[in-house]
């Protein structure tokens, strides 16, 4: 059963429309990540689901019940905020228990539930501390605990990791994912970090300017981006975008040999050829780009090289131990099934080769 359905969700602030008809079905127990640049409407969508903002048009359904006109507390959701929003004047126990204040459980049941949650989050020892005595990661866990204790139909996470340092973020990412596997509630997670989206999501929803650009599994959006925006947003470093013209099944760059495509494009149509740095290597078979290495970025196992080509600067991945020197001329090639072709005007994918 779908635990959350959004139907043509529209949100307008004064005269600015920030969401233009968002529709989405989220299955029970699914981990869905909304990702996009700031101002794309992902947080607004979350706030609409939570009931913190009124919908301008459209419907929100949680567990088969239209909740548009229900108060946040009646929607059977819980939310974890970017700033954690745990109360500094209360102990961890009271903070976590806060979510149960209005619940109809007996006192004993509440205590059991609170202790279960504390045990899952490994916070039993910290229950009597104040937030000021906790580290950033522990505070985040308190915020998650307060949400968990209510056992909601849907968990909403609003960029919960963006205030943590890089190492802690990686750790919390893993913890949240494990937690999801353990408790199995539906999670809607908002982030601007595509790495978070890729690593955590069952499905990713990529948004831009109040529109959904693509919905799919992480591997789908990575390997089969629906348009140039998704192609550029997902994956780091960004996909190389090369202007070229198509002649039959052959693409022609500013210079260099023809590139065989597996798809049919109308003759003479200008297209954008996309290739990820991960798929573009020096000294492979059938090179189609040539240029001079301008910058190297060693990453350990690999080295990123920035190459000046007649079609513009491209990023490619070279061997970590023996990368080409700066100033060296290199020939770049990619597997044919790793090339993406996009319409120049609409930016839409003309079906990736893969």
């Amino acid at each position, binding site marked *: 059963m779908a635990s959350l359905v959004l139907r043509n969700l529209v949100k307008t602030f004064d005269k600015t429309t920030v969401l233009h008809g968002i529709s989405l079905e989220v299955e029970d127990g699914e981990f869905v990540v909304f990702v996009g640049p700031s101002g794309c409407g992902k947080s607004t969508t979350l706030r609409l689901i*939570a*009931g*913190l903002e009124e919908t301008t048009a459209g419907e929100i359904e949680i567990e088969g019940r239209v909740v548009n006109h229900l*108060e*946040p*507390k009646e929607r059977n*959701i*819980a*939310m974890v*905020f*970017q*700033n*954690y*929003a*745990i*109360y*500094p*004047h209360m102990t961890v126990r009271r903070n976590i228990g*806060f*979510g149960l*204040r*209005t*619940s109809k459980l007996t006192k004993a049941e509440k205590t059991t539930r609170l202790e279960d949650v504390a045990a899952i989050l490994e916070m039993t020892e910290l229950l009597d501390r*104040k*937030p*000021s005595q*906790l*580290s*950033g990661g522990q*505070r985040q866990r308190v915020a998650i605990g*307060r949400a968990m204790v*209510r056992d909601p139909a849907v968990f909403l996470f609003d960029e919960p990791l963006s*205030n943590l340092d890089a190492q802690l973020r990686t750790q919390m990412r893993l913890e949240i994912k494990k937690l999801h596997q353990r408790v199995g509630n539906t999670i809607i997670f908002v982030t601007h970090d595509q790495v978070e989206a890729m690593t955590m999501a069952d499905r990713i929803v990529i948004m831009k300017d109040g529109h959904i650009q693509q919905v799919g599994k992480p591997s789908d959006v990575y390997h089969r981006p629906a348009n140039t925006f998704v192609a550029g947003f997902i994956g780091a470093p960004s996909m190389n975008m090369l202007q070229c013209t198509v002649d039959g099944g052959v693409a022609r760059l500013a210079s260099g040999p023809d590139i065989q495509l597996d798809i049919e494009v109308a003759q003479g149509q200008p297209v954008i050829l996309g290739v990820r740095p991960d798929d573009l290597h020096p000294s492979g078979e059938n090179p189609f780009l040539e240029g001079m290495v301008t910058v190297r970025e060693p990453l350990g196992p690999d080295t990123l090289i920035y190459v000046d080509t007649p079609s513009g600067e491209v990023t490619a991945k070279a061997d970590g131990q023996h990368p080409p020197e700066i100033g060296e001329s290199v020939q770049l090639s990619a597997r044919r099934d790793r090339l993406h072709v996009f319409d120049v005007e609409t930016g839409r994918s003309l079906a990736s080769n893969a």
Partner: protein
Amino acid sequence: MVSSVAEIRASSKTLLAPGTPWRPANTGQVIRWLILFAGGVLMVMPIAYMISTSLKWPHEIYNLALVPNEPHLENYTYVLEDGRFYGWFINSLIIATITTISNILFDSLVGYTLCKFRFPGRYIVFIAILSTLMIPTEMLVIPWYLMSQAFGWLDSYWGIMFPGLMTAFGTFLMKQFFETVPDDFIEAARIDGLNELAIWWTVAMPLVRPALAALAIFVFLGNWTAFIWPLIVTNSVDMYTLPVGLSSFGDEADVQWELIMTGAAISTIPTLVVFLVFQRFIIRGVVMAGLKG
């Protein structure tokens, strides 16, 4: 640069540590200390004279020496043995306490509403409240008096208190402080199912404790020292507040400064207590430990 800053800001601990070489102060430091010293003297002098006068005999009052020739405690005995003083003290205490509690509750309730709720006319209401700050008390006492008379509040606690039970200044102060409480706290509580009044009381109020402490001090001191309105609205000696009562020591042929100063010295005690109790909260500052660390 960094080292020079550190030099200027050397803590008293390092300066007083044994073995720290003695260095002459530079001109800037000397000027700063002199200005601070002058300010300090200016602040302390009236209090010093108050205490000094309270220890003098009547014939010594106009002798401006700070140290009395024959210091004695007779004035204190007189004031404390005079039954009226306790009544005035209690009156002032009751009025200042109730007014303080009322201001803390209602100023913050209105301030919170104006800050955290979006409703049409919000801005106009706020401006209207602020604009009342521009009307001086002297202009208001006549309407207040007529109002008290009409309601039969003359010469009663209620009559003394009612103009100050809520203040525009307090509302403004609280609104500004609630601006510093992130909306996330409020929204989190809303999702957790609290009603708006419970959110205000259990979530927002504890987060603005320093502001409440400041407001409490202002309101308490303001009411403790209020003179004009209590003087006008009270008739019987029993209903006098402390400042009004103390001034009545001067009703007779000559002003008994030594008694007035003795009463004033005693009456500073509650204000000191209030300040010492609440300054702790102010100095501790706004701790937002619940947010990102």
